[in-house]
């Protein structure tokens, strides 16, 4: 658990609602206003021990406008999408959806690649290029992103055992097929992204 900058120090933390408004404007972001700070999410998260801030804390920081703390925190990246918080949240907030949306916000506003996002990016590339995901392809792309060619080779070697086993058992398709309507799919995606006011 991170301690807040300024916490306990002489300088009180200044509320700035601008950031919160940006977050509220995200898809489903307005739900966050409903949070009543009960903390159920904090306890329910399987990754809570690794989190810099619990979701509850993160939401209070968003409300206070602490953009830097929020986006610096690992919270949104360690979410496993297990849905527990969403099922339990007494205010019915789709916390999981918000975590994804915050990842999206991060990636599009920070213009930098978060080391934690390479898997996501690899996944997305594969989706855009083929319409479906092949696990092997995604992992390779991911490793390439993380460590460049050398890294990827090293990582593949490290994972060689698993990969070979999967391959042997017929569970790894190295080159998955492209879907036929790939162009259409990409058009749909482009349109949707544009509707969100965001183009890749």
């Amino acid at each position, binding site marked *: 658990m991170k301690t807040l900058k300024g916490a306990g120090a002489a300088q009180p933390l200044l509320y700035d609602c601008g950031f919160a408004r940006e977050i509220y404007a995200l898809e489903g972001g307005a739900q966050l206003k409903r949070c009543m700070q009960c903390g159920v999410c904090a306890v329910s998260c399987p990754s809570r021990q690794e989190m810099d801030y619990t979701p509850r804390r993160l939401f209070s920081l968003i409300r206070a406008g602490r953009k830097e703390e929020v986006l610096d925190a690992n919270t949104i990246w360690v979410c496993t999408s297990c849905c527990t918080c969403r099922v339990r949240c*007494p205010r019915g907030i789709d916390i999981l959806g918000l975590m994804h949306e915050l990842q999206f916000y991060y990636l599009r506003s920070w213009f930098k690649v978060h080391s934690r996002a390479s898997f996501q990016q690899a996944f997305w590339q594969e989706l855009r290029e083929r319409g479906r995901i092949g696990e092997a392809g995604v992992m390779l792309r991911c490793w390439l992103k993380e460590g460049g060619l050398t890294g990827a080779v090293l990582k593949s070697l490290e994972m060689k055992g698993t990969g070979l086993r999967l391959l042997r058992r017929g569970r790894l398709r190295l080159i998955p097929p492209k879907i036929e309507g790939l162009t259409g799919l990409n058009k749909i995606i482009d349109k949707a992204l544009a509707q969100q006011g965001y183009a890749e």
Partner: protein
Amino acid sequence: MVGGGISGLTAAVEAAEAGFDVLLLEKKPGLGGRVAQLNLYFPKLCSPNCGLEIIFKRLAANSRFRFLTSAEVIAVSGGEGSFEVVVNLKPTFVKENCTGCGRCAEVCPAERPNAFNFGFDRTKAAYLPHRLAFPYRYVIDGEACRGPSCARCTAACPYGAIDLEMEARTLILKAGSVIWAAGWEPYDTARLGNYGGGRYPNVITNMVLERMASPGGPTSGKILRPSDRREPASIAFVQCAGSRDENHLRTCSGVCCLVSLKQAAYVRECCPEARLAMFYIDIRARGFYEDFYARVREGTGIELTKGKPGEIREDPATGNLLVLVENQLNGRVLEENFELVVLAAGMAPSALCAGLPASARDRDGFVSPVLAPGFYAAGCATRPMEVAPAVRSGAAAALRAVQWLGRRGHGR
């Protein structure tokens, strides 16, 4: 009057004393409703039986008051001045001339779980609803009874009060106005899987604790863990168990904070050494209840933690419970061990009756105090509330119900 709980009884007694004829219908075999199950009221920490006794006394002497128990309303039709109420009378197998002597229960060979004590003990199939039952009359549980082939009770009863052939009857009653006071049900905590409701024996509801603490309850007033009948060394009160929750009861039940504080107060009396803790979102001790809150906070040493527990885990070996909660004061996730957990289960509106159109209910299942001219509702059927407002709501409904009659000169 539909419902013989505190708001229904109040409406009945106040209207009857104002000079109007009242017929009260109660689904259960005895009057008193939920309050009859309570150990003590907050904030005075006094027994509900004191107030009930006066009401029963006033009603028992009032010739304008009549009542039917084991009577379920299945339809209400008509309008102000000419309602028709269809009532289903469930067979109790005991006639009204029962004197309450108890011979039937002495000889009865069959047993049933005692629903009044939430199944924590058993009664005979022939039983008195509870010690302070009004009417003071035995009833026979048709499901547990072995039927006419046994009939030991029939032989034992000196008064010929038992009729094992009794059948359900349907009555159609006429009324000038109708008051709906069907009350509430404790929220089913079995739906709170993360709290182990209905699964872990030592996770109980606040209503069960009331029965346990009551001298007439299943443990004769002792607070004991269901798993091993041992006095717990630590008790956690978990607030909003189902209340203020979009997945369960969307409303705040308004009373649970005070119920838990009250329970902490009386548990402290009988378990002076026990560790008491309460986990809450907001302590909603409105009005003068704030005094009570302060008194309990200072007098019991209860640990108050702001934070709604996310999960309760059981150690199957000991039956102890691990409560996981984020303490909002320091943001730390606590994992605290307790020997008993009391879930402050909220108030769910009573099940829908055929007499009431589904449209009468709001999204939470409660009904409006004024359903139609001549058709009114009172008490927790209208919104969650504690005893005092339920009493006032009963009186208010009684007034509305007598207005039509009053204008026609009845009651003078």
